């Protein structure tokens, strides 16, 4: 519920953004700043850790140094942050971890859509569309990023288990568009590709589409040459592509909800409220973790059918 429209009782909120060079995280940052302004929250100016753990660590130090009593972060390296979390726990400063689930160290609440779910959703969609035959290229993110790894593992397991007929070419891309394009081109020269799962639309969408365009492989689903593409993120560009029939689906990673509930739980923490596992008032479930709780937000699969849905964050931005 919108309990804390006035700032929670105990002190400032410290916020750290994980990076500023991706569409998803920029949208997230926009939402956060928006909400902070709208709700007149008592938050410090957000810091940016540029995807570097030790920058995050020092940022947290700075934020607490400036009197932050609760911290909202999105540690991209879920292990490396462990000792920092312990320190914060020692200082009785609750931590809300957005998008990633720290492997170790106390967290007040993890706010994320289950990345394994992304992988599975994509797998099921492709599996059914291709009815268990053909070749699928998977643009893995970076194996050193836990989200990338979760998605890869989930996708891989699901394919192996449910769709043994499909051959998966998992390509490491270090989240780089040109690498992905190169790998895809290689894959195409090695035979027909029937499906593509890209783990980050922001990075892979344009290169993929423009390559397929060039190879005249952007054809309607009715055409046998059609390549089924599932993306991930739910940025406006992906929706546009879906509407244009260039790709078939994307998993909408709810940037807006991340921001909203990240801040929400921060306020609750400051207000001293505690939560228990179970369904929430906003259509998600809280589950128990060894080192805290996790509110698993819904991550809808967007296809041509529901791409118009105004509830989707991707349809909000740029408006």
């Amino acid at each position: 519920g919108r309990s804390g429209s006035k700032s929670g009782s105990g002190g400032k909120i410290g916020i750290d953004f994980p990076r500023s060079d991706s569409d998803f995280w920029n949208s997230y940052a926009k939402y956060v700043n928006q909400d902070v302004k709208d709700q007149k929250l008592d938050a410090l100016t957000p810091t940016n850790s540029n995807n570097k753990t030790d920058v995050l660590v020092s940022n947290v130090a700075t934020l607490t140094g400036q009197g932050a009593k609760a911290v909202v972060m999105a540690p991209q390296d879920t292990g490396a942050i462990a000792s920092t979390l312990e320190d914060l726990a020692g200082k009785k400063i609750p931590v809300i971890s957005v998008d990633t689930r720290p492997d170790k160290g106390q967290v007040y609440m993890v706010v994320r859509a289950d990345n394994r779910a992304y992988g599975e959703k994509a797998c099921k969609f492709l599996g059914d569309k291709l009815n268990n035959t053909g070749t699928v290229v998977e643009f893995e993110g970076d194996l050193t990023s836990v989200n990338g790894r979760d998605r890869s593992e989930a996708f891989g397991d699901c394919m192996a288990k449910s769709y043994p007929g499909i051959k998966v070419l998992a390509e490491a891309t270090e989240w780089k568009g040109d690498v992905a394009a190169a790998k895809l081109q290689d894959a195409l020269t090695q035979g027909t590709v029937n499906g593509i799962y890209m783990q980050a639309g922001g990075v892979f969408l344009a290169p993929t589409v423009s390559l397929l365009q060039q190879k005249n492989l952007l054809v309607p689903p009715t055409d046998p040459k059609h390549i089924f593409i599932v993306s991930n993120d739910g940025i406006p560009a992906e929706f546009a592509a879906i509407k244009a029939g260039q790709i078939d689906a994307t998993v909408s990673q709810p940037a807006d909800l991340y921001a909203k509930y990240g801040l929400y739980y921060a306020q609750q923490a400051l207000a001293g409220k505690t939560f228990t596992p179970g369904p929430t008032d906003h259509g998600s479930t809280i589950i128990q973790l060894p080192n805290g709780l996790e509110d698993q937000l819904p991550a809808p699969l967007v296809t041509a059918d529901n791409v118009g849905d105004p509830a989707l964050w991707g349809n909000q931005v740029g408006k």
Partner: protein
Amino acid sequence: MSEVTTMSDAAELLPANHPESPARRRPGTRWLREFSLLPAMALLILIGFIESPDFLTGDNFLAMLQQSTELSVLVLAEALILIGGRMDLSLESTVTLAPVIALWLVLPTSGNRFNGLGFGAAWMAIPICLLVGAAVGAVNGFLILKMNLNGFVVTLGMLTMLHGLVIVIDGGQTVFTLPPSFAYLGHHDWLGLPASVWVCGLLFAIGIAALGWFRHGRALYAIGGNPAAARAAGIRVERTIWIVLIIGSMLAAFAGLLYAGRLGSASASQGTGKIFEVFAATVIGGVSMNGGRGSLFGALTGVLTLRLIENVLTFGHVSAQDIEFFNGVVILVALIVSRYTSGAAQD
């Protein structure tokens, strides 16, 4: 009188034994230095051929060429700068900055998610892009040559600053809406070859010709080899370096343009990490980090080798987990092979 004979005799007698060995061998080794990667490349191609029937196909090689265009243009730039005895790390950021600024200026003020200033017509995008490149090069030149700052750190600082500037401008988002002029090179073929490949080849041809057969090109080698001597020989060292830095950055801007065209988008993350590849390719290709040695052709083979390695590994279906490791291994092996085919110690 007889002294004269004395001298001439002496003259005949002495130097006789000096030149022999080195003199004859040299051109040979020079040749080798330039082509020292070819055996390694042959080896890779052989491996690829064994791996998969799809490897040794026109398509595949076309694909490789196309995917190498941007990197080769960057390598061309860095090679020129290294031969001149300098280095420029900021190329990596110029790659993304130039197109983004161009788009920012040119794109209409509304309608897209990323709104520009609607300044100037769409066709101006490319000229602006190149101008931005030139500007960056000029600034580097000023800081290094006029203010006598350390070139490495200057360009390193620029690397950070310019990359940051991109994010300031586009808020880190990816720009998907490109003017047709950008898309063109990435999407059209001339005589069956992608336009970008032609252009890139042309640029190298020009570069090789300039450095091989023209005074001002040769001057670069002299400057890289010994600036003081070059100055004494009447070469305008500073000016030449400055020009080369500008050309280099313009090439980087052009590479950025090719990227944007091929990937159908421009974003801050596009160039990141490239500069390492650039140096790897250039130096593997036999261009000396100490200036004055190496050839553009060699640098080109450097690019193609790296690309071949990746390609061979992909065709070898090396698991995503192991690919980086093998990439490193193969680079080292290629290095060793070229070392022993060129016979000369590397510098």
